[in-house]
């Protein structure tokens, strides 16, 4: 392809700049500049071109930057991922993605596996001398008794754990069992309340020692029907609880005496454990279900162990013993916590 005179002049100017132009090319360039003032003004003469080239070479000569590429390059070479590792990780990632998608799509046990364990209450079953712990939904449990309306709800039994005498001494740390029947009394009908009141009068003579301790402490968290320091209102509620419970321990409420191990005190375990005990016709506990875990398995297990170790009075229906459920709750507090 033949160049135009101006393009040819550019090529010649470039050759002169680089010092590659022959004598014939220099003459050709001079002739073009003699006829083309525009190119002369734009490119300049031969000396101007050589001067520009010397500017570039002078700039090149003034550079003293000494970069080091070798170190970072060798690090990169040494850290270059190996083929097996690269492909292996890729294949592993693909397998993991497929597995996850399969689990979620199929709704398999993976979703159940990652579900928080506290979503289901803890079920502690006693089979002979063996204790079986499992998480099971209470709604699925078929309680072999007819649902009965409850007139009162026991909310808390406060257990104060005594400070351990020695951290390495592994023995039960509870010095005494203060069961403060801090009750939120929810009377469903006034007739039942009246009956409860009369029942209290009949049993008022047998006030257990833990009740006197309760009078001194006067817990502030008691329900709205109980005023602080009012032993009578508190006792009324307790009596109502006795009269309406389906199945109760034979030795009374204090028969269930959970003894947390020393490790619970050392770890500062606290919380409320609500539980249900299934009682058969003979008054023997058959199963303990934790309906509200305390957050510490050791506390839940302690409560269930204590609840399963006592004998109960079975529920009676029309004078006949039937299977029943005993519901209760224990609140564990550290020894130094006041209320």
């Amino acid at each position, binding site marked *: 392809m033949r160049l135009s005179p101006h393009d040819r002049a550019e090529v010649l100017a*470039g050759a002169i700049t680089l010092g590659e132009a022959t004598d014939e090319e220099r003459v050709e360039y001079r002739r073009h500049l003699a006829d083309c003032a525009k190119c002369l003004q734009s490119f*300049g003469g031969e000396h101007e071109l050589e001067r520009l080239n010397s500017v570039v070479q002078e700039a090149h000569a003034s*550079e003293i930057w000494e970069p080091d590429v070798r170190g970072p*390059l060798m690090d990169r070479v040494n850290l270059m991922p190996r*083929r097996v590792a690269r492909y292996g990780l890729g294949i592993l990632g693909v397998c993991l993605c497929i597995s996850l998608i399969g689990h979620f799509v199929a709704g398999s046990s993976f979703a159940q596996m990652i579900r928080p364990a506290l979503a289901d209450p803890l079920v502690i079953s006693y089979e002979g001398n063996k204790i079986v712990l499992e998480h099971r939904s209470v709604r699925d449990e078929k309680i072999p008794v007819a649902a009965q309306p409850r007139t009162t709800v026991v909310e808390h039994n406060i257990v104060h754990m005594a400070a351990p005498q020695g951290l390495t001494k592994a023995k039960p740390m509870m010095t005494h069992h203060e069961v403060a029947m801090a009750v939120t009394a929810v009377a469903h009908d006034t007739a039942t309340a009246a009956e409860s009141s009369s029942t209290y009068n009949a049993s008022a003579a047998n006030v257990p020692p833990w009740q006197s301790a309760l009078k001194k402490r006067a817990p502030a968290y008691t329900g709205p029907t109980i005023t602080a320091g009012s032993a009578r209102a508190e006792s009324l509620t307790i009596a109502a609880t006795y009269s309406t419970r389906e199945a109760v321990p034979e030795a009374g409420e204090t028969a269930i005496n959970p003894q947390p191990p020393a490790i619970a005190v050392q770890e500062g375990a606290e919380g409320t454990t609500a539980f249900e005990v299934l009682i058969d016709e003979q008054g023997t506990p058959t199963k303990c279900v934790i309906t509200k875990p305390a957050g510490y398995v050791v506390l839940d297990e302690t409560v269930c162990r204590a609840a399963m170790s006592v004998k109960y009075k079975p529920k009676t229906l029309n004078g006949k013993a039937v299977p029943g459920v005993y519901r209760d709750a224990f609140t564990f507090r550290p020894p130094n916590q006041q209320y």
Partner: protein
Amino acid sequence: MEQVYLNAAEAPVAHARIESLVREHQTKLSRYVRRMVGDPDVALDIAQDVFFAAYRTLQSDPERPLTAGWLYKTATNNAISFLRRKKIVRFTPLDRDWEVRGLRIDERSSASIDLQNAMQKLPGDQAAAIMLTSYAGYSSQEAASILGTSADAVRQRVCRAMRTLRTVMTERV
């Protein structure tokens, strides 16, 4: 057991050859790229990429002849790609010497600043032509083989680049 190399004897060969290439060309190549892109950090990255590409090439074929022209060709392509990307987000400099900040203080001679200011105004192909020939010392024929064009085209680009440099120097005066 993984097989990264075709045989065990090829690994030292590739290492030895790449070390030789780095020792011989790292300074010139890095300076060349710094002039092209105007940023020493970017220049180091590009130079490192060039040598790493050379290493990968030698890994697969240790006997392949890798010349300086191959390195400059790869570096030029990488620099031109960077300049094209940079053009999208390029900001207008507030001061005249903004382009020369990639140079060290003791490298900022009048000629060096003029050249760098002109470089920032040149298209990638003209910058590569003038840097390969007048700066790096290649002939127009060698530069043409590196850039994949003809020698006349290289000379024409050099002429146009010099015209820009001349304009910059005139403005500065």
